[in-house]
């Protein structure tokens, strides 16, 4: 489910672009989020100030990451937690699966966690004969379908209520209904029974406070509370970048996170978990483990431009505004983290198989404008494009695109000669006339056919005079 072999993104995105139904669902869902966001933002005059504060605190925290992680670890130990640093996905998986085996767990309840998707934990559990149960309703639904989430906040955004109705009929043999209330009640009942006797739970982490050794988990459903307080053994997994210095810093993030993510002022539940339960307590695990994952993040840290991406608080807003995401949806990216921020982190977490993703952007800047921690996403995408073409490990493109790129290079050569290009332009306008429809060329004759494989080309106009390069001014 992580980055798939190359080429896939091209195929999947081409297929997704044709899927009008998918676009309808994505449009309606993202528009709803954005409408709500606009309302709560307007009602909250401090939004910009909080955004500023969050950006500064996060930038500062990342610059002190080593010290903060040491402080966090010490505090977690003092609170009675076990801490494990995992260098990569493999180590994290092994630690968690071995722990579950040692505890004799046959089933694991999971709160929503993109990090466990990142390390592909579920297949590892299954291989060990342990049943991982996703308990976030959206995640539960996509798991029943044998898929991964298609949005980092709303995993089942690509499905209609009818899709889900049919799924439940198929899986549970219940009478068909497409009413969200009934479908939700069905899931509640099934999952509640599992929760009450669960003995191994896992959730992700939204923030970790170094000062106190406290993990913050935000959610709306209550499955995060259940996963972290019912089982006897609880594992929290977090990337190294989740740590913030002080309790007093937290409100700045919480005041913007839910507003930007879903248009709520706060999520329904915010849990502050510092350690295992105490003598006599009903709730909380007897044993609490915290897995702190690097998996390519320290490499991002070493790059002064890329580093900024570690500020991300995974609000998902950049997906909602992205014209590419809204066209093709999350699955087409072929990576656990889709959308603009996904195009940045995926190549760094999953290697060159996801290296095409930084090119899947129009650089329109909508993501930068909405990002609550002010990440300059287009700048980082450009930086990555540069790295992927001119850097140490240049990408290998599919043959068809390689051809188009060679063509573009040749064009760049010719374009330096104003007279030649003007002459060629007039010639092309004449020659291409028969291929045009409504002012666009859908298909061009060889050797230009590779270009139109991926986009339509505006028909060259015989009378339009392009400015010579000497007349072009820098924007």
């Amino acid at each position, binding site marked *: 489910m992580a980055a798939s072999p190359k080429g896939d993104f091209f195929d999947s995105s081409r297929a997704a672009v044709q899927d009008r139904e998918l676009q309808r669902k994505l449009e309606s869902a993202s528009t709803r989020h954005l409408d709500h966001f606009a309302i709560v933002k307007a009602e909250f005059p401090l939004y910009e100030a909080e955004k500023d504060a969050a950006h*500064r605190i996060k*930038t500062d925290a990342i610059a002190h990451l080593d010290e903060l992680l040491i402080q966090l670890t010490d505090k977690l130990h003092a609170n009675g937690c076990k801490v494990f640093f995992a260098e990569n996905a493999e180590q994290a998986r092994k630690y968690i699966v071995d722990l579950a085996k040692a505890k004799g767990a046959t089933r694991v309840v999971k709160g929503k966690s993109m990090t466990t998707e990142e390390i592909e934990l579920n297949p590892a559990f299954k291989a060990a004969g342990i049943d991982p149960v996703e308990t976030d309703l959206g995640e539960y639904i996509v798991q029943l379908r044998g898929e991964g989430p298609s949005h980092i906040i709303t995993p089942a955004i690509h499905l209609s*209520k009818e899709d889900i109705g049919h799924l439940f009929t198929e899986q549970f043999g219940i009478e068909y209904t497409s009413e969200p209330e009934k479908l*939700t009640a069905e899931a509640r009942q099934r999952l509640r029974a599992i929760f009450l006797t669960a003995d191994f739970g896992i959730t992700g982490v939204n923030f970790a406070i170094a000062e106190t050794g*406290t993990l913050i988990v935000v959610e709306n459903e209550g499955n995060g509370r259940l996963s972290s307080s019912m089982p006897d053994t609880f594992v929290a997994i977090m990337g190294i970048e989740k740590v913030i210095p002080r309790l007093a810093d937290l409100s700045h993030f919480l005041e913007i996170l839910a507003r930007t993510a879903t248009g709520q002022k706060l999520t329904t539940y915010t849990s502050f978990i510092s350690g295992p339960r105490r003598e006599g307590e009903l709730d909380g695990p*007897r044993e609490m483990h915290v897995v702190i994952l690097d998996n390519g993040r320290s490499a991002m840290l070493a790059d002064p431009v890329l580093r900024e991406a570690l500020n991300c608080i995974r609000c998902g807003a950049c997906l909602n505004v992205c014209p590419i995401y809204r066209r093709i949806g999350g699955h087409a990216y072929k990576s656990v983290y889709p959308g603009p921020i996904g195009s940045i982190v995926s190549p760094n977490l999953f290697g060159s198989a996801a290296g095409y993703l930084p090119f899947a952007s129009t650089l329109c800047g909508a993501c930068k404008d909405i990002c609550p921690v002010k990440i300059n996403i287009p700048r980082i995408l450009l930086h990555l494009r540069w790295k992927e073409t001119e850097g140490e490990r240049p990408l290998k493109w599919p043959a068809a695109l390689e051809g188009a790129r060679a063509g573009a290079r040749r064009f760049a050569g010719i374009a330096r000669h104003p007279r030649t290009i003007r002459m060629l332009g007039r010639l092309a306008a004449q020659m291409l006339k028969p291929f045009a429809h409504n002012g666009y060329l859908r298909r061009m004759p060889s050797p230009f056919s590779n270009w139109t494989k991926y986009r339509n080309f505006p028909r060259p106009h015989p009378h339009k005079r392009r400015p010579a390069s000497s007349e072009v001014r820098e924007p």
Partner: protein
Amino acid sequence: MAEAHKILATIKTALEAGERQQYLDLANNHAPVVPPTRRVPIAGPEHRAELATSLARELELVGGKFAGIVSPAELSNRIVTLAREIGAKVIAIGEGASLDMDAIGEALERADIKVVKAVPVADSERLTMREQIANADLGIAEAEYGIASTGTLAVISTETRPGSLTLLPTASLIIVQIDRVVHDLAAMLAAHGPARLIEHRLTLITGPSRTADIEKRIVLGVHGPKALHVIVVWPRDE
């Protein structure tokens, strides 16, 4: 621990390679991190009416139900009435933070409602206690704080007040004293402080459990309570 040292060393090197100083300057170049001006400090009595109104309004906006402002003497009666209104037959309670929950329990029993009381449990008794609370129609808990600007209730979990009370029963009733209602999250976290945060698990509750995972339609009670009722206690003499 070997991994920890290795990763921490990598991070340190990475920070240095990325010209940490330059980055620190960037971070420091902005004015120091100061919280934006807070509108109201921790509330004095003159703000109470405003805070209670805001708490009630915001609570209703997130699908909660405001069950009114009552004096301490009226509290038990109000709870009994509420229990009748929602048809609760079994109610789970714990100890209060400041309220006398035993008196409330007795009043409920007098009204023929079965009361399950959360008490400290040995590990072997956990499942039974949990089942009992899960089977309750209503769980009652007292909040440490109310947050007026977001309609939020902050509860902690202890051996006599388990978090399950606000999570497992079909509906939830949270009671908050008016002098514990603050304006916003920052004020609440500052009042609570780091020391108590480590001591007990803290949960902020803003409305009933909800999901919007199926075509963005909001459905309440996906995992936690389907309804959240809130009562504010306000002594008469103030």
